[in-house]
């Protein structure tokens, strides 16, 4: 089972090199990328400075795998990558990177929405929203 987790934030460099790796795949005509970024929400007058992600990793990787399989079944894609952070990601940094590629744009546009919604609903990842004063609240997907 592929491990979709990366320790800490997903860096712009990592994303850039991931794009570069696809230049050899010339049957691709369209990429679609989703980037989840940690937002500094204000909760009860305190500002979120980071999210500490944890997960049932084995179960989460299985869920990512299933989402991947289902997506390939539903949409005609050339390739697909999912990376999710674990550990601390500061506000403004990237915590989720989904990358789908296909011959044509319609496929990737539909696929990216499906994948992101599935991840939000089905992958056991938990987020602890940290404040500057070391207190925290637990994030819940809406």
């Amino acid at each position, binding site marked *: 089972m592929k491990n979709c987790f990366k320790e800490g934030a997903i860096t712009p460099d990592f994303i850039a090199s991931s794009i570069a790796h696809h230049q050899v795949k010339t049957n691709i005509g369209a990429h679609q990328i989703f980037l989840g970024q940690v937002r500094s929400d204000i909760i009860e007058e305190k500002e979120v400075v980071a999210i500490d992600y944890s*997960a049932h990793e084995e*179960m989460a990787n299985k869920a990512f795998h299933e989402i991947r399989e289902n997506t390939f079944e539903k949409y005609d894609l050339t390739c697909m990558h999912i990376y999710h952070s674990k550990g601390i990601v500061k506000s403004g940094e990237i915590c989720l990177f989904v990358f789908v590629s296909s011959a044509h744009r319609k496929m990737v546009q539909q696929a990216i929405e499906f994948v992101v919604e599935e991840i939000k609903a089905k992958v*056991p990842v938990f*987020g602890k929203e940290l404040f500057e004063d070391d207190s925290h609240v637990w994030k819940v997907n809406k």
Partner: protein
Amino acid sequence: MKQDITVVILAGGQSSRMGKDKGLISVNGKPMVQHLLGVAQSIGLPVIIIANNSDYKQFNVPVYEDRYKEHGPLGGIHSGFYHSQTERIFVISCDTPFVQKELIESIIEASEGFEITVPRHEHKTHPLIGIYARSTFESLVKSLDAKTLKVMEFIKPFHHQVIDVSTLFDEEQFENINEPKDLYAQVKIKAFGMIAERMDSTETEISIPNKKAMNLRKYFNELWPFLSEMSYSIAIDQELREELNKNEQPNEIAILPPFAGG
């Protein structure tokens, strides 16, 4: 007329299969007999235990030995009458630890005018969760002397009733614990996020009663009351489901707070 009833817990039987005295075997963290004591006391009835083992004295209720030893449950019922003063006794065997207050109360309520009242659930009659009047004592002695020891046979000649409680109570209340593997599955619990924080641990081991189908959400909400006020999901061996089957021995059960990925 609750005032004329003593609860008699039968713990006299030998239990070679359990390896130790049955009623003292722990279920959900306390001895089986203690579950029943708690239930009897919550109804406000006096309780005695019939046992041939002085370890039962730890519960601070009177313990009496069988007067007819090795005469099965009837011997225990005899001792129950002998050592109580009330007109009727409510008999419960210590190996049905899941009996609840409501079941006992509804049997008592239905019992007026009968010498013996016992419940039936589906096709099974349970003579060792029932109420017996002292008017049966004389013939009890005769049965014991004659060594006719079947409880169902003993009941027949009396003005008795079998009340069907199938629709009122879950079958689990009648669950009979005979062997250690009947008792519980020893299961590793993994907790995450805010749940791990509330439990103060990410991994713990608990015993879950081994029943036909165990509703884990209900069980967890009782074990960790804070869970009943929050939204969470349960994964048995990484599969989202909430019912543990009988004799299932999962490697892990995960308690997952709301997902927050992305």
